[in-house]
């Protein structure tokens, strides 16, 4: 019996950004999270920390205000350590196990692979974020919050997480070692956060930098854009800022991978 015929392989058009392939890669990646306890451990830590910080440190009750400012105020700090923990394995793990050679020799483009894996990680943080819904229920039970503002803040938080993740994706692509990737990512993310801090900006002003430059630096800050959105004003510029940050770092990821995927 002849097992293989001579039929040439036929696949549907595989253009540079074929969503189908991206979906396949994202689905595999996402499933990988839940195949090990990592995902569950992360979710538990994220939710516990979010709750603890909000109710313990944020003065949620003491403020006697029906809003979620104390909750969202801590998100950047939560992400600073938890998002790099998700991002560190994105590429470092592929490199270490050698599966990167398999992925990169499938008929997929670098962009499809990078975007697919990023979307999986982003989708996962979206799930984590969505699981904080009891906080939202609580505040609605206790008072009459502006749910539009809360929705905007959730959106801003998700965009900020995407920014952190994109940075982590690039650093993970450059490192075989996950711990190193984690630490470098935390440092860079911390830098991006600090840019918006009043004391830091004050320091820059004291150093004699022109106000225009200081404004420009402050404009790069994750915090400033997140706070703008979380006040309930979804300014297209803030959204665009995060999307641009994500696109830039993902583009950097493809460059890093293209240069040293086989190292």
């Amino acid at each position, binding site marked *: 019996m002849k097992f293989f015929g001579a039929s040439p392989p036929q696949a549907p058009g595989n253009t540079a950004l074929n969503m189908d392939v991206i979906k396949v*890669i994202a689905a595999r990646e996402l499933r*990988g999270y839940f195949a090990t306890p990592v995902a569950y451990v992360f979710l538990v830590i994220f939710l516990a920390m979010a709750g603890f910080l909000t109710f313990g440190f944020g003065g949620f009750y003491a403020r006697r205000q029906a809003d979620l400012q104390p909750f969202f105020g801590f998100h950047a700090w939560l992400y600073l350590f938890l998002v790099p923990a998700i991002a560190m394995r994105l590429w470092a793990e592929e490199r270490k196990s050698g599966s990167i050679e398999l992925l990169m020799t499938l008929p997929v483009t670098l962009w499809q692979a990078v975007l697919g894996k990023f979307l999986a990680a982003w989708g996962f943080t979206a799930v984590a974020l969505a699981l904080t819904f009891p906080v939202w229920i609580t505040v609605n039970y206790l008072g009459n919050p502006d749910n539009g503002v809360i929705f905007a803040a959730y959106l801003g938080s998700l965009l900020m997480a995407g920014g952190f993740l994109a940075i982590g994706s690039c650093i993970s692509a450059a490192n075989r070692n996950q711990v190193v990737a984690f630490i470098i990512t935390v440092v860079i993310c911390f830098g991006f956060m600090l840019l918006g801090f009043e004391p830091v900006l004050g320091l820059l002003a004291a150093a004699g930098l022109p106000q225009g430059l200081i404004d420009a630096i402050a404009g790069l800050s994750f915090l400033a854009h997140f706070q703008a959105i979380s006040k309930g004003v979804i300014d297209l510029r803030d959204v665009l800022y995060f999307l641009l940050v994500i696109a830039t770092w993902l583009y950097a990821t493809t460059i890093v991978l293209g240069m040293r995927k086989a190292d």
Partner: protein
Amino acid sequence: MIKAEHLTKTYGPLTAVDDLSFKVEPGEVLGFLGPNGAGKTTTMRMFAGFVPPTSGHAEICGFRVDNDPIEAKRRLGYLPEGAPAYGEMTPREFLEFVAAARGLRGNDKQEKLNRVITRLNLGPVLGQSIETLSKGFKRRVGLAQAIIHDPPVLILDEPTDGLDPNQKHEVRELIAEMASNKIIVISTHILEEVDAVCNRAVIVASGKIVADETPGSLIRQSRYHNAVTLKFSNQDSLQDAGNTLRAVPAIADIEIDVDAAAITALPRGEEALLEPIGNLVQQHSWRLRELKLESGRLDEVFRRITAAGTG
């Protein structure tokens, strides 16, 4: 057809692959041989689009790997060295993923999945995570993902490494079965394998091709080609017999193995030795356990060629 055109890869001062050019046509099973570090894996990776060449290019079915990577990769089934996979996935999930990433959908996908699962006997381990599988099964999962889309070109980096003799035999049968209408390139350092499955052997050393022939003609280069080995029942007449054989004009040289009580007579050129030696055996009434005509020793040819290449 696949083609390497002046393929070169350097890592800093090290030249891993040095100006390789060759073509492989359908129906050919090319055994890619060479000592470790000779550039076999790097060459295969350049064909698979994983390592960009420093200069030159590789081509698969008319598509250049550097300019048209997606089209080239679509026509290629590739087993990377060590058969890497996603360890936490089961073979079924993994093969489903590869099939989907290769654009297979629906019934066609299921059909092809079932076919490779049957062909590589993966049935018993389908639901077990790949990281818990034995080396043999892992290798077979790797082979399954390489052939799932029935590609016209197969590049397999050490497909039988780590398999037991039965599994090796199965893999060789699989390759032989697919050989008629495909281009197959396998790298190996098991020389018997080249003889068993390949119809062309390319030996590389230090990134250069040092031999490109059929396994048969490679074996004929062995100094043991057409040599005759006599194993005596005891060592008593060994020296006398050695002297007698040495005097035969058709014999270029002899090697005496005292422990095994054996003499190997190497022919001068294309001289046939079996008959004259047979006559001598009768004449002197040597008591033999065994009289053997050798076809040649690949490992000896391999050593000689690769040593010359690196020297």
